[in-house]
């Protein structure tokens, strides 16, 4: 009798656990937010340094004091090409503000010549940073492009946007963060 009770007890526990799994599966919604999570959010940005395609040195740490937007890019990636006009508009709008954000393209698995040709054709006069061996991508945990990161003037990572940008998204997010930062 005792062992029968034990079997019933164990079966009940197993049933509850299985039921909980089903509830989680039914209730959970897929993560479709463009604004993505990352352990780096709220942390100091990785200390990355590299060169622009023109050969000028670039060190993220030296950009403290300004809002910095890093856009991970490849000239053959369709979402990167699609979002490019939005980045041009964003850079243009920010250049007219005294506290405007600095935009940088981080080249992902692409060569300088293709990048130069792409920007000559499609516009965008901001700096393009080379990423040899993908060290910058790994430092930010970027596996797929495009990805866009926002870093505040204290050098703290504030936002990660995965996938293709939508109209006005980047500008809105930077404005929200700016308001939050100044309050």
């Amino acid at each position, binding site marked *: 009798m005792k*062992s029968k009770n034990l079997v019933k007890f*164990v079966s009940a526990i197993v049933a509850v656990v299985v039921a909980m799994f089903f509830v989680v599966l039914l209730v959970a919604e897929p993560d479709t937010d463009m604004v993505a999570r990352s*352990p*780096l959010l709220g942390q100091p940005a990785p200390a990355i340094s590299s060169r622009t395609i023109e050969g000028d040195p670039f060190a993220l740490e030296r950009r403290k004091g300004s809002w910095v937007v890093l856009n991970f890019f490849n000239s053959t990636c369709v979402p990167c090409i699609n979002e490019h006009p939005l980045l041009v508009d964003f850079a243009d709008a920010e250049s007219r503000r005294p506290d405007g954000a600095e935009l940088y393209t981080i080249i*992902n*698995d692409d060569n300088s010549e293709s990048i130069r040709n792409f920007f000559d054709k499609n516009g965008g006069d901001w700096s393009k940073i080379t990423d040899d*061996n*993908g*060290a910058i*991508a*790994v*430092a*930010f*945990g*970027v*596996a*797929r492009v495009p990805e866009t990161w926002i870093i505040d003037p204290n050098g703290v990572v504030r936002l990660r946007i995965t996938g293709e940008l939508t109209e006005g998204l980047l500008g809105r997010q930077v404005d929200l963060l700016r308001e939050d930062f100044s309050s």
Partner: protein
Amino acid sequence: MKTRRSVWLAMFLLAGVLLVFGANRGGGPKTQQERIDSLTSNLACPTCSGESVFESRAVAAEAIRSEVARQVAAGLRTDEEILGFIEQRFGGQVLLVPRADGLDSLVWALPVAVAVFSLFMLFSAFAKWRDNRPSAPSNDDELIVARALDERES
């Protein structure tokens, strides 16, 4: 009976000790390439399905492989720290061998708990069967058998 049980117990203990010893035994000094291969074999390629960073030729996997190689060459981080660095960037799903702490420890603890519970239930069942074995025949039993034999012979 008691001796047999002691022998089984000793064998289980010895097997356990050997398993623990074998699992924790260091493989001796490794070359840098062996460290890189071992580390990248334990990391999942973040853009592929079912491939490790060691096997994959994807861009992200190659970038991680380069970063691991760079950190191993720098010699400033242990293997655990390098795995922790990659995990912090790409999330826990990048680890092919789950960690043994927090909720992940259930992956290791549950099978052991189930095995221990199953063994306990088996031993309980065997003990019960042993207790229920027919004991020596009583006088009444012998009388019944004797009568039955008499009837058969007559």
